[in-house]
């Protein structure tokens, strides 16, 4: 087991090669861990073959590696069975899959409940479903602190509510969603619950069964794995009832000119050649994550988050978005400084090797609810340390002078 005194930064080739870089944009994409990079290269140079169809040894090795990756993901999520894990090209693809495959089981007048805090990838697919089928799309508002206002649930989770689809953690405010309360309310009306875990996974293994949810979506590139791969987890009995979204090779029972039948899940939802090496790389990243002491990492991430929040609150006129308490948030910290545009701030910070993101962060409805167009975001991951935070606070003082 790794202890936090080992600088985790060393396991990340890009960071190891750039000692001066203060990478504070892990909410957009995390850096890739060496184990994932190595696993991809190893797979491509020793096991490369297409999966599910070949009988030669190389193809069997590819199959085995791919199915083992599925099992690793299942363990990372504490899923009931590996067959509940569908590999996709990313969280956005996972969410589109549910909006189509589950969406097609809904009829006009059924309600889907999302929140104003959703990333566009869990917002627009539901709007499209609404426009396509006439479902009702309802929005959980946010409190001033940017948290889902669950006090409003009683009026929002109506009897016709079939699905609650919300983020586990906001990619802007870092606010954690109170999933237990949500699930309880959803269960009362028989609604299913989808959790967008894109921001949560880089902060540790998950337990979809303890969460009590029905669907879970995330991306490999946000949890130290390769790009081009993501996951949709769904309950077995629910997946079994859904029709496919993408169609093509590998997901069929039989194809005739008249009609086509489907393979069982998860294959039913994996049309075409899947991202094989990327799934293997993702599994390697998750295996590595499962060796870590997450209590220690959370304590450390919270400490850094508090250091940052304390420093920010000392900047006159700065508006901190999201909850002040570090327990209520992942270490994602966004802020607005009236009169200074995030792009100018980020540009000045870049000259000091600080990598931060400014913009609407693919969350325009949330921006509107918070009364802003854009903001600046610093996101902290397990490879960050105090020097990153101090450099940022120092850089912000400089930016305030430089841009004034």
């Amino acid at each position, binding site marked *: 087991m790794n202890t936090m005194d080992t600088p985790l930064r060393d396991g990340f080739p890009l960071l190891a090669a750039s000692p001066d870089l203060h990478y504070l944009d892990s909410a957009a994409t995390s850096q890739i861990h060496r184990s994932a990079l190595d696993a991809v290269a190893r797979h491509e140079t020793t096991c490369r073959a297409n999966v*599910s*169809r*070949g*009988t030669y040894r190389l*193809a*069997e090795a590819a*199959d*085995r590696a791919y199915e083992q990756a599925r099992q690793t993901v299942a363990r990372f999520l504490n899923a009931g069975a590996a067959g509940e894990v569908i590999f996709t090209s990313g969280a956005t693809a996972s969410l589109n899959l549910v909006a189509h495959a589950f969406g097609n089981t809904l009829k006009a007048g059924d309600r889907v409940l999302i929140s104003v805090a959703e990333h566009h990838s869990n917002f627009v697919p539901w709007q499209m479903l609404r426009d396509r089928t006439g479902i009702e799309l309802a929005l959980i508002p946010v409190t001033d602190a940017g948290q889902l206002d669950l006090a409003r649930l009683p009026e929002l989770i109506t009897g016709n509510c079939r699905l609650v689809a919300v983020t586990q953690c906001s990619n802007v405010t870092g606010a954690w969603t109170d999933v237990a309360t949500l699930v309880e309310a959803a269960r009362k009306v028989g609604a299913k619950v989808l959790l967008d875990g894109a921001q949560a996974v880089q902060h540790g293994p998950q337990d979809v069964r303890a969460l009590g949810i029905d669907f879970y979506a995330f991306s490999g590139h946000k949890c130290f794995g390769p790009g081009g791969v993501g996951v949709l987890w769904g309950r077995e009995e629910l997946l079994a009832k859904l029709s496919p979204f993408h169609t093509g090779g590998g997901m*069929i*029972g*039989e194809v005739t000119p008249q009609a086509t039948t489907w*393979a069982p899940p998860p294959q039913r939802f994996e049309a075409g050649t899947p991202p094989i090496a990327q799934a293997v790389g993702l599994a390697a990243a998750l295996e590595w994550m499962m060796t870590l002491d997450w209590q220690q990492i959370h304590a450390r991430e919270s400490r850094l988050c508090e250091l940052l929040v304390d420093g920010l609150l000392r900047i006159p006129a700065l508006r901190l978005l999201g909850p002040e308490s570090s327990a209520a948030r992942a270490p994602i910290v966004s802020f607005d400084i009236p009169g200074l545009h995030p792009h100018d701030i980020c540009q000045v910070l870049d000259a000091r090797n600080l990598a931060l993101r400014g913009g609407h962060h693919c969350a325009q409805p949330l921006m509107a609810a918070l009364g802003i167009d854009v903001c600046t975001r610093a996101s902290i991951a397990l490879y960050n340390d105090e020097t990153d935070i101090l450099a940022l606070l120092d850089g912000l003082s400089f930016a305030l002078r430089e841009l004034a």
Partner: protein
Amino acid sequence: MNDKDSLYQDAIKEFARAAHGHGQLAAATGEAKLDNPLCGDRVRMQVSVTSGHVAAIAHETKGCLLCRAAASVIGLHAAGQDANGIEAVAHDLEGMLQEGAPVPPGWPELSMFEPARRYPSRHGCVLLPFRALLAAMAESEMKRVQR
């Protein structure tokens, strides 16, 4: 090639060729068609069950030697078995292929599939006729209770 380790032992080829139980039943009580979408093996299995025991089976099997040999073993051995017995054999056979468990008792011919242990992609070929038989028996039972 060492015959004991070779996948295509003479026994497999002989069983496939013999095709015990190949054909159709005039009065089946249950039937199932199963296929392996990834490789094209296809088994149509009919059973005639009386008092919970297999009186007769017949199958039409299109597929590889392993699948055809397995169906042929069923043709030889299934008569007289009840659902529990068949389920146990199928379970033990899967264990033999996947974990090196012993050959299912009473079905010594299944040892000819032991070399297939090394080829996971072929396990489905051997198991398909057994799954078809179980499905046919389940259909038979369902029809009985609905009558």
